[in-house]
């Protein structure tokens, strides 16, 4: 019997706000334990939550970017359970009236080759709601210590429909979702810092069956690759159990990405009754058209739309766009440079950015914003090449100098005398041929293997160009002419 996998993902994304979800104390990462706290975070007797409006702005933006319906009214509910990382022993969340409903995440599956665009799919979302993050337990030899710095950080839960079919799709889903959040300035989505966390619900069923199989929840998937590997592993595990005649048990499993194994955490019998009820300390939130419009105006173009536009407007090949569009800063950088360079030069601009600039950043271990090479530099460089002023070797030299000094390409060309003068290569070739014809002795010596004899030919050429010819260019052209002589 052939089986298919059915996967739904629950993704938690921390919203990047200055303060916490329900109090004024700062949100952040990497601070000394329990310093990002106040009476509200610690749930001291008598404190009350007050909603952080910036977090609502951010989730509305996330919803609009993902095509969700934004509820005109949403409310806050208490999710009651005891755990030491939860100071109130209830979490303020949204149960039956989340702020975002429906919507979807567009994904691209791997293409037939690296340079071939893959199939696009739309993964439907169930909902996105807002809640508060919990603290962190640190287990020591004899004690467990709790750090409430993370507690109360605004946290979105993005729930997909169970429509993901493979580990690869899950990977593509998270890649796209993550880029969307970063693009929107909603979160930095650094999984190592817990800013994006993913749980996967996985089941298998015979192909053709419409009923869902028993689901297993996979937790602690700490990177996008682990999500892919963990899901692939779990699908194989379920297939093995089923094919051995066993049945899948509904449970929560912990995936160890390094070891590539999973183990059961708890079974359904121990499932919680969260006793949700509306939080009487908070008022429902009304999101009117003006609020939505204000956020809509802040919504950026998303990577796939940008990719299509770059392909159409700038005639960029897929390989370039697939690098450029996933990094908003890089894409913006490209567009600025392409516009400055003028029409017909976008691909050259793209090549310089994707190849040389990216390599330069990698070598220097710096971010794009820290590079001394600005979009105007790239544009000017490409224009100089296009005009014939710079030949490729000289251009590379100019690029390296730009990275070091931040000077403009023309300044570097002037400084180093790299300009290819005359610009007309026919003229230069003419001077070369004249020099060859007039200096038969030097030619013969050169051809016989005396390398220095070429200098005897360069003198007359430099004289003919009134000293302005690029020596390198002269050398190249002269050798080319000599070869066919």
């Amino acid at each position, binding site marked *: 019997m052939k089986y298919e996998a059915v996967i739904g993902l629950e993704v938690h994304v921390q919203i990047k706000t200055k303060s916490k979800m329900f109090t004024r104390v700062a949100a952040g990462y990497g601070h000394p334990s329990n310093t990002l706290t106040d009476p509200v975070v610690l749930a001291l007797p*008598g404190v009350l939550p007050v909603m952080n409006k910036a977090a609502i702005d951010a989730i509305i933006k996330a919803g609009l970017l993902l095509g969700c319906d934004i509820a005109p009214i949403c409310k806050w509910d208490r999710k009651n359970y005891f755990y030491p990382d939860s100071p109130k022993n209830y979490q303020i969340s949204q149960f039956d009236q989340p702020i975002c409903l429906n919507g979807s995440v567009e994904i691209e599956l791997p293409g037939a080759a690296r340079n071939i665009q893959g199939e696009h799919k739309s993964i439907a979302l169930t909902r996105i709601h807002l809640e508060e993050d919990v603290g962190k337990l640190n287990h020591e030899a004899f004690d467990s210590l709790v750090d409430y710095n993370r507690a109360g950080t605004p946290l979105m839960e993005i729930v997909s429909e169970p429509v993901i079919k493979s580990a690869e799709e899950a990977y593509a889903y998270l890649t796209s979702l993550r880029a969307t959040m970063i693009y929107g300035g909603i979160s930095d989505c650094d999984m190592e810092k817990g800013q994006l966390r993913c749980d996967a619900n996985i089941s298998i069923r015979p192909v053709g069956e419409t009923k869902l199989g028993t689901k297993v929840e996979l937790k602690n998937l700490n990177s996008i690759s682990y999500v892919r590997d963990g899901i692939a592993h779990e699908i194989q595990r379920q297939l093995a159990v089923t094919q051995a005649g066993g049945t899948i048990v509904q449970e929560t499993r912990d995936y160890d990405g390094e070891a590539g194994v999973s183990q059961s955490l708890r079974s359904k019998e121990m499932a919680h009754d969260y006793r949700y009820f509306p939080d009487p300390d908070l008022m429902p939130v009304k999101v009117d058209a003006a609020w939505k419009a204000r956020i809509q105006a802040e919504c950026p173009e998303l990577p796939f739309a940008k990719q299509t536009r770059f392909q159409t407007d700038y005639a960029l090949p897929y390989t370039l766009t697939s690098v450029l569009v996933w990094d908003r800063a890089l894409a913006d950088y490209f567009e600025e440079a392409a516009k400055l360079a003028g029409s017909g030069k976008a691909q050259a601009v793209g090549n310089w950015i994707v190849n040389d600039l990216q390599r330069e950043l990698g070598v220097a271990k710096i971010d794009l914003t820290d590079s001394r090479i600005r979009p105007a530099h790239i544009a000017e460089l490409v224009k100089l090449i296009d005009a014939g002023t710079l030949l490729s070797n000289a251009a590379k030299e100019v690029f390296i100098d730009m990275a070091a000094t931040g000077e403009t390409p023309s300044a570097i060309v002037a400084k180093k005398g790299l300009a290819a003068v005359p610009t007309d290569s026919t003229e230069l070739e003419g001077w070369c041929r004249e020099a060859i014809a007039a200096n038969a002795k030097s030619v013969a010596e050169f051809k016989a293997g005396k390398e220095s004899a070429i200098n005897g030919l360069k003198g007359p050429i430099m004289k003919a160009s009134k000293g302005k010819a690029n020596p390198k260019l002269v050398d190249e052209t002269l050798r080319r002419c000599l070869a066919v002589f």
Partner: protein
Amino acid sequence: MSQAAMTSELFNKTITELAALLEAKTITSVQLTEAVIARTQDVEERVKAFNSFDTADALSQAAASDARRAAGQALGPLDGIPIGIKDVIAVTGQPLTASSKMLANFVSPYDATVTQKLKKAGAVIWGRLNLDEFAMGSSTENSAFHTTRNPYNLDCVPGGSSGGSAAALAAGEAIATLGSDTGGSIRQPAALCNVVGLKPTYGLVSRFGLIAFASSLDQIGPFNRTVEDAAITLQAIAGYDENDSTSVKIEIPDYRAALKEKKGPWRIGIPKEYFGEGLDPEVAAAVEKAIEFYKSIGCEIKSVSLPHTEYGVGVYYIIATAECSSNLSRYDGIRYGHRSANAKDIVDLYYKSRAEGFGPEVKRRIILGTYVLSSGYYDAYYLRAQKVRTLIRQDFLNAYNEVDAIITPTTPTPAFKRGAKADPLAMYLCDVYTIGVNLAGLPGMSVPCGFSSGGLPIGMQLIGQPFKEADLLAIANAYDSAHDWSKRTPNL
């Protein structure tokens, strides 16, 4: 009046009287505070209204008030007045126990908004007043520490949950006090102790810093000797607070000025549902006499109906317990409060800390609340209760189409003997007349209106329209200023 005779009576004076003496520099706040401290030291052994007090702290606040006044920077009528605070309202550096073993050693690192406001008004924050544990009860017998006595009869309860606040004021151990009212916890003890008790409209006074019992019902309010004092105290504590999302942004009128400006005559509603079975005849007679007074000053007395009254107690004990079961989850022994010394693991720590830290009534309500919120029961209990709650509020709003205020007895009976209501259900029925006001979010007051043949105080309840405390106070003042019930003091 000799200096000695005058200061000896200072503890029984009203804010209005004392503010005049302070302003005239006839007395100082230190003298007044010393008089209150001396009175407290004299009677507290019998009354047991306080969980703790800090005389040095109070005297230093008083000295600061005197210094302000000497510099011509007095802050208003509360400057220098000792005000007692129910031990569920946070005061920086002072214990905050909720009369529970759970918080027996907890000291608050922050001020409640009302505490801040009283400090800004110059009041001397004085003492931590006893209550039923976590404000759950009607007699203070549920305090984990001790039972407060009714100053008018030490064998009787002062009411609750704000029993300490009412008893301390009646006994002259403070000039005014703050309490909190979830189902009658200000008005019922006020009635039983012959003082004025005001529960404001839900949302008028910030709850920030009030230990939550039932968040959608809790309100802080004042206990005072006169309605005029209530107007002064409410003025200081009312108003929008950005730390409380349920506080309401409205203009706060001048309540004291309203007492003179608003002259009636008013239309007063009498709901027949509040005068039926279970009402003590002496209480009924006293309240009816008060209604006669209103008639005599030209008010129109109308019979109104609040048909869903009978569901009030049931609805209340579903909503209040549901909310408390969640609100009290934070008391787990992890970050602060009682932690069991004998726990084996984390679950055991929760079980034992809570089992040891909470008293029986608190446990009973947590269990009930947990049950009504459980999966499968939520719709039948909590959701249904909320719907009935809406109907109860609608009853009142319908009545207010015809009347300006409603008068009822505050309690079915005067103060009862300690230990007389061992059955929790019998105790719950003490609040039968006060619960509806909380469910409907309305302002309600208890005003002294007589004494029983046994010498126990009787209070009438005046119920006003949402955020119309100015009118409610004016109506109450019309009666209070024409009677001297509230000027009587207990024989201690």
